[in-house]
């Protein structure tokens, strides 16, 4: 899950967003689409070392929660 910078944020911020990665070996949150099924966008909490999925939420719910919090 990456926070998209504003259009005028500058080269460094956009490089950070587009190219540079923490590339975590362990638990990470990602956006997935249920391509083979209902087409929903999901926020999946997944371990990149073990492939264990510990949490799946609807992306729309996560977005609403983020908006309510901000």
């Amino acid at each position: 899950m990456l926070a998209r910078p504003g259009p005028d944020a500058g080269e460094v911020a956009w490089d950070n967003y587009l190219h540079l990665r923490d590339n975590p070996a362990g638990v990470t949150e990602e956006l997935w689409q249920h391509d083979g099924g209902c087409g929903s966008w999901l926020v999946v909490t997944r371990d990149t070392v073990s492939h264990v999925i510990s949490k799946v939420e609807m992306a729309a719910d996560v977005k609403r929660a983020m908006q309510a919090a901000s």
Partner: protein
Amino acid sequence: MRFSGWRVLREGLTGNKGWAPHWRDPEPKAEYDAVIIGGGGHGLSTAYYLAKNHGMTNIAVLEKGYLGGGNVGRNTTIVRANYGQQGNSEFYSHSLKLWEGLEEDLNYNAMHSARGIINLFHSDGQRDAFARRGNMMINQGDDAELLDREGVRHLLPYLDFDNIRFPVYGGLLHRRGGTARHDAVAWGYARGADQRGVDLIQQCEVTGINIENGVVKGVQTTRGAIRAKKVGIVVAGRSGQVAAMAGMRLPIESHVLQAFVTEGLKPVIDHVVSFGMGHFYISQSDKGGLVFGGDLDFYASYASRGNMPMMEHVMEAGMTLMPMIGKAKVLRSWGGIMDMTPDGSPIIDKTDTEGLFIDCGWCYGGFKAVPGSGFSFAHLMATGNHHAPAAKFRLDRFRTGAGLMDEEATGAQHNLH
């Protein structure tokens, strides 16, 4: 100890009692002129060329597991120079020339086999694209021949030429391409480096990189601190973690790429063959197993194993192209961790920390680059200057947008290569 036909004969007649270990197992010293983090193919070849070309023998390779235990022992062993973009072309051309002299240089049988690579095409448009690629290869000074359908049939009679969806129109033949015994490449470089005085230190994980006032001073390891004037990071899929020890974020995502091998069969596939309409490529090892693979699983992973959907895709593509392999039993499948860059091309560069260098981003094409990568990275570490064939592998090309090398023309963004 030198290998020769005479030596093999003598050892055979005297019970093979005269062979010695190929390299020492030294304790780490407190200080080296240079330390290479990572004892894989690229790290070992870097150490070898630092010693051989630049006379740097007070150096060490630090490996957290065992030598050659990562991607150099997990790939599908293909060697080629058929790239199309400036930057890549001259690099892989140089690397292939090193391959061609490698066994004599190392006095080691790497089983390099220039058996020819045939990339098949299945439409008029794809023929045009391959003709163009072939011309680029020839312009670079390498070899390429465009085969028509009958030309391919002569070499690969077993293909399903009249497949309804993907008939074979022809292929691009790269005769100097082929395969090599991947483990032997790592062992040969390790032995060559060791013979020149390089300390190869296994079971030694780097846990920190010491930096003072923007200058690298050494590393912390599970076997104690080691001072070094220069440090090279050559850790493929683990690049993100090691670079983080120096406070860096890299333009790299680690993904899993699967490979497969069947039971041993009599010789049946004489070349390296790739399908043009699905991601599938295959060769036959000297032991007889069919070695094949396909595309990434396309999710970030450090698991060294993949999942079923990509297995199914690879098997389907193989069966579409050459139905004869359908009865071969798959013995094993495995995954390697690929250090994927946004444009699919590698990085050999300095970092913002003085004395700290990085060689990474080989994506799923690192094996054929082992000689060239070590040669060019050693040049950079020893002289501070980029080696001409690898001079475009810059770390900052994504931020500036200048000098991107996007072979697939899919865009310089993660998850597109």
